[in-house]
């Protein structure tokens, strides 16, 4: 009884931080998909991506900031790379993870990194090593249930993080722009919306476009940026870019971030000027 009481006391002492929701969610999605369909072609590839991600984060943070860093963000980047990158070779997994993490420390504007790390890494690999790398673009399994479960669990988790509006805006925008594409190309509407039924989009929507560090802060800004991403994606899709969403986020995301940072900085400068005079 005493033991149980102690355990209860200890559990009460634990607190759950919402920052662990995304890592737990992506782990859950991975486990569910792998146990159902065996989506991981090999464990070494995933482990390589996560290990490279951890190592890069630890070393660079220590080198640049001077302290050790919490690895939850590196974990998401590593696991995203492990799932998204498709290559029969091992080196692209390590390299993509390292590029992703390193981009956070190198490509900064006004003290913030402006690219989503794994988005940057994936796009760089597609641009620089197309002979060796592709990105996950097929279904996991062949039934609707797995997809629905991931959408529902993902949506609930994202809702608790108060970022569901970003996902919903993107999905609505994608479906609307798909209609435009279908009208323009003459291809069936269902063919235009087919990609969003795949896991690539689930990862893109739940973990890339909602990344708190690389999305603008104002809610209206978020709506506008997401619609812009979907719009640029439409343009890229009309030009037959297979991995259009990644390129769209790669282009729009940092521009929006930089614009907001610049605007805030300028606004602060302006608001500080009268004070100096007063």
């Amino acid at each position, binding site marked *: 009884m005493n033991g149980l009481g102690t355990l209860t006391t200890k559990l009460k002492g634990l607190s759950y931080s919402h920052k662990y929701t995304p890592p737990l969610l992506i782990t859950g999605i991975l486990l569910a998909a792998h146990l159902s*369909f*065996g989506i991981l*072609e*090999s464990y070494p590839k995933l482990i390589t991506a996560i290990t490279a991600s951890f190592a890069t984060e630890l070393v*660079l943070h220590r*080198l*640049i900031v001077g302290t050790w860093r919490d690895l939850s963000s590196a974990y998401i980047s590593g696991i995203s790379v492990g799932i998204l990158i*498709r*290559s*029969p*070779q091992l*080196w*692209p997994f390590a*390299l993509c993870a*390292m*590029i992703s993490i*390193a*981009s956070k*420390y*190198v490509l900064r504007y006004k003290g913030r990194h402006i690219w989503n790390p794994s988005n940057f890494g994936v796009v*760089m*690999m*597609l641009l*620089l*090593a*197309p*002979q*060796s*790398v*592709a990105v996950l*673009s*097929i*279904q*996991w*399994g*062949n*039934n*609707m249930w797995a*997809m629905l479960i991931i959408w529902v669990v993902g949506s609930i988790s994202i809702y608790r993080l108060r970022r569901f509006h970003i996902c919903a805006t993107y999905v609505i925008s994608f479906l609307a722009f798909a209609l435009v594409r279908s009208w323009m*190309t*003459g*291809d*069936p509407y*269902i*063919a*235009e919306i*087919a*990609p969003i*039924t*795949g896991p*690539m989009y689930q990862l893109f929507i739940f973990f890339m476009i909602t990344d708190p560090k690389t999305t603008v802060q104002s809610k209206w800004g978020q709506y506008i940026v997401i619609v812009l991403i979907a719009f640029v994606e439409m343009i890229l*899709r009309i030009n*037959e*870019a*297979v991995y259009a969403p990644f390129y769209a986020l790669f282009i729009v995301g940092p521009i929006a971030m930089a614009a907001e940072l610049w605007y805030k900085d300028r606004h602060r400068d302006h608001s500080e000027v009268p004070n100096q005079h007063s």
Partner: protein
Amino acid sequence: MEVRKRNKILLALFFAVLLATPLILSNYEQWTGRSGLALDRQNALDQYGFYLEDVTEEWGVDFVHRAPSLDKQLDHIMPQIASVGASVSVADFNNDGLQDFYVTNSARGTSNALYKNLGDGQFEDVAGAMGVAGVNTAETGVSMSSVWADYDNDGYEDLLVVKWGKPLLFHNDEGEGFSRVSLGPEFPEWINSNTAVWFDYDQDGLLDLFMGGYFHESINLWDLETTEIMPESFEYAQNGGRKFLFHNLGNGKFEEVSDELGLVSNRWSYAAASADVDGSGYPDLVIANDYGVDELFLNRQGRGFVNAGEKAGMGFAPKSGMNVSFGDVMNRGELSIYVTNISEPGVLIQGNNLWVPTSGNSGGLSFRNLAGNFGVEVGGWSYGAQFGDLNLDGYLDLYVANGYVSARKGTDYWYDFSKVAGGNQTIISNAKNWPDMEGRSLSGYQENKIWLNDGAGKFREVAGAVGGSLELDSRAVAMADLNNDGTLEVLVATQKGPLKIYRTVAREGHSWISFRLEGVESNRSAIGARVEVVWDGNRQVQVVQSASGFSAQNQRELHFGLGRSEQVDHAVIAWPSGKTDTLEQPETGQTHLIKETKKQS
């Protein structure tokens, strides 16, 4: 402050190196001039030990494949549906010691061709005279491949034509003609099959027949009742055709036993081949499935099959399997299995599989995919592949056919293809959801690969440098010594294109030996017999097969390059019956005709 600045410079350098790495790795061969070499015959002989010469026209072969024209509801994606059917299978049908070959056509009303080797560097199409030409009809469907074997042990190779339609078996009437065999009710009226394998699964001396379905057998592609005919998933589909296993009863009759023996699967089978991969003495079956994993069915003493692919490490990563070929790539006396898949830069990099047997932790049968380590991973949209020692250096080389749909140059259907291929089953499985191809190419104009085995665990691509470049949509590949000069010619059947024959010219000073086997207690074609040749510290194993590769069959003779060695220590022949014959120091530079000795009673 200085330290921070230094660290930032280091960081920038580190980042630059990271970004430069993929560029360097991907372009290393190009920059170092290790690829894209043009043909210089003397240089090819000096550097690689051989070159290839296109002799198709010179040898009198002018066959051009025509693709089927299917139901109009498929018009918008016809090139990708009607993308197979060009096949080639080699056999000496008249036992004159010269290799002949049969090629298939796939449009209704077209003729298949049987090229008889006249022995003077000329071939003559005798299919019409022999009664095996006009087999592509509305009633019985069209040809997809063919496979030879002496199913009735009368000493002549019989011919099975595999179809999207009704399979046809032709009995070889002592090399003078063929008569169609009435297949019993056990055979399906219609099966959309691309692969069949003759093998004696129960070792009773009679060849049995495996057939794998691609599209479901309920579908008549010329008269669709529904457009829901496509795979339900790009890599996890199980709505393809069923498997058939016909047990040869010995009286010209067959009994269908697939369910009874556990050979049950509805994956989209594109290719299959058989060899005893677990050393049980019974032939196993390896199946390459499009839209799914490779399957390994282990034969349990002829009494049943166990689907052991996943347990053996093969049936885990789903890809787009198109080919099965066996080769002892390291001269270790073990067969590796080569399965081709799809690789398109920046879009889909599945990589081909080279399943190499390894010692598993549990001691059971285990394979690892070492295609990357050996350098035979990234081909293209790959179809047929064959192992053969082209330069006679004692190591098996590899020819791989590539190219899916070569339509308008400069166009690409990949974007639309990937859009739907990534969709849920309700989308991907319905042909009407697939965007119109509008004459666009899809992984078209890809070059075939010739990978030269260096004997040290690496293959090097040399197609351009040895004159083997071919950009047509290649499907089936077969190897055979067509001119009896001790080197293997390469035959390539191309979709909607000509059959190509490449004569091989090898550097002088390399030797060879080959074996033509005839079973007595074993099936007369000796299919399943295993020959191990030991020479100069090397040993290599090959197995007599029927089907091999994709829609192809090599010559039945087993051909070994010996390098500079003039002598073979011994050759051990393990017959399917369990009998073993050993030849001590057989002469090199010739084909040995070996008849199975009878068991001592």
